[in-house]
């Protein structure tokens, strides 16, 4: 699903030495894999997520998404790919204030042509166990519920790849464990999940752990647990239906 070769990204600022945030990173992630990108603060993992999420461009190297070279595509095409192929979950949730859970989940559908946006958003919320919170405003939800709304928003367009940047960073351990279980279920349903984290215990839920240090891949090790997904066929509607209504609280 994702293949990067010799990816490089350097930040240059006037009067400061250049900072190599990604240094010749090569990586392959298959469909339905749950991969943790683990590294300390400043190791370049967030930059890697931005590049893999098509939010930022690499200075050098190649990026193939579902077999298509995407590193040099124009901005509008990247926006279209983000909408169709990718879902994002952020540490700070990034829910819109004064907006209900349902409306937050509908956000990516604004940039697609789905006429059934209301039904899709309700289904996504149901998939993360928030069917009874659809009309609650973001401010009225707990941290864990907000993060689940963010996950519903990320999966509403049935993306092939889900990128989660420190998704449990603002949650207590029990709520965090529920969120991680949800990612695992998504991977089991065929979604490729990349967990960006500095936390070993979070990375422990992944099928594979890619350690990053100073922008370079330090190690890439498969875990001993059985793989989460790796489904050859990808039916997104089926994925959503397979998710338990209660999610993992």
């Amino acid at each position: 699903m994702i293949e990067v070769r010799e990816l490089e990204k350097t930040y240059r600022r006037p009067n400061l030495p250049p900072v190599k945030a990604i240094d010749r990173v090569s990586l392959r992630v298959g469909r339905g894999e749950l991969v943790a990108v683990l590294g300390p603060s400043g190791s370049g993992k967030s930059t890697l997520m931005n590049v893999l999420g098509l939010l930022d461009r690499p200075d050098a190297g190649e990026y193939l998404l579902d077999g298509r070279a995407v590193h040099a595509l124009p901005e509008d095409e990247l926006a279209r790919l983000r909408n169709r192929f990718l879902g994002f979950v952020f540490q700070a949730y990034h829910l819109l204030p004064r907006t209900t859970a349902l409306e937050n989940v509908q956000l990516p559908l604004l940039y697609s042509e789905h006429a059934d946006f209301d039904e899709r958003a309700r289904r996504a919320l149901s998939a993360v166990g928030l069917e009874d919170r659809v009309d609650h405003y973001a401010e009225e939800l707990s941290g864990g519920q907000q993060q689940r709304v963010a996950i519903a928003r990320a999966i509403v367009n049935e993306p092939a790849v889900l990128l989660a940047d420190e998704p449990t960073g603002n949650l207590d351990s029990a709520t965090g464990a529920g969120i991680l279980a949800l990612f695992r279920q998504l991977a089991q349903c065929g979604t490729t999940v990349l967990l960006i984290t500095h936390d070993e215990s979070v990375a422990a839920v992944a099928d594979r752990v890619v350690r990053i240090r100073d922008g370079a891949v330090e190690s890439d090790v498969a875990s001993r647990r059985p793989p989460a997904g790796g489904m050859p066929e990808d039916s997104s509607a089926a994925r959503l239906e397979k998710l338990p209504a209660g999610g993992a609280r």
Partner: protein
Amino acid sequence: MNGPLLRATVVRRLTRHKGRALVMGLGPALGVLATVLLVTVSGQVRAKFLAFLDAAYPPDGIVVYSGGGPMSAGGPRRLTVADVETIVAATGVPAWDPLVFAGPRDVRRDGETSSVPVMGLSEQGAYVRRRGARQGDYLTAAEVSSRAAVALLGATTAAQLFGDASPLGETIYVDGTAYVVRGVLEERGSDPHGGDQDHVVVVPYTTLLDRVLRTTSLSAVSFRLDDPGRVEAAGREIAELLRREHQIAAGQQDDFSVFTSATMQAMFRRSFRTFDLFVPLIAGTLFLVSALVILAVAQLGMRARRGEIGLRKAVGASAGDLETQIVWEVLLVAGVAALVGLALVPLGLRLLEPLLAAKFGLRELTLSLPPVVLAVAAAVLTALAGAVLPARRAARLEAVAALR
């Protein structure tokens, strides 16, 4: 973009951010209100003046005033019947009617007394001034030549003195002198300054000259020609004749003024030129300020919405999508505000009515479509101008930087 969802999103933004929408909408609402009021009022004042000019200075008429004209402060008053007879003899003008203005006088009937402008005309007045008697008879040649004590009443004066009763044949007293009412004049309504043209008493000009004022000076004389094409030449001819008669040397100021329909129209256009500039200037300033307020509020809004913009980009909004959304948000606010402004127009007109009635004699103001369309279009276009820059800036924002 998803059209139905965009509509829902834009409407939701308006209803959930009322404070910002209110500040943003204030300019377009006031702009539409002020523009529609200004254009409506100025248009109807103009129409009122034109109707008055058409009646007072018809295309086949010439009016000669003693002194500087109807708007002059006074000066020598040397226009006499002899002058008029010389003009008629020299130019062959077929019809004329003198005017002697005696100012407001006490007019009494039984216990009712009223201060009414009194003027003297001839039997030609009905034809030359296109204003006859709607009830009873007009002045006759015999009454004029005999300096008869007869009067015509304006409709307002008749109603004041006689109520619903017929004034015909009744006696009124002007400054204590008895006059028999011969008729009631056709109604003219108010003049452009709000003066009631039906609040008048007309008596034979000879009566006023010889029995009341004891003078030979006329206030003015109106001529009516058979051929409107001759008016300008006849006007010049009359002016030259009067200069000769009054022995006014070249370079000396005339002691009379000659007005034709064309000269009055030109004078009116000159006076209204300032007004014609003033209306678009005020409206333009309002809409410019409105655009600047929208620009400032939208700009501040973009700063507050940095995270949202980053998120929208992350979930697939292209630069064009963001521009479209922000522009529609502003257009909706401007559109709703324009409608609010329009809804306030009848109230504004009602509040202005007493002032307009007193100043211009405008009693029923009617709203026409062109200023409404013009004002709403201006509100929407200026809002669009104010929205474009913030929308472009939002579209250029990098998602990574905005989400940080």
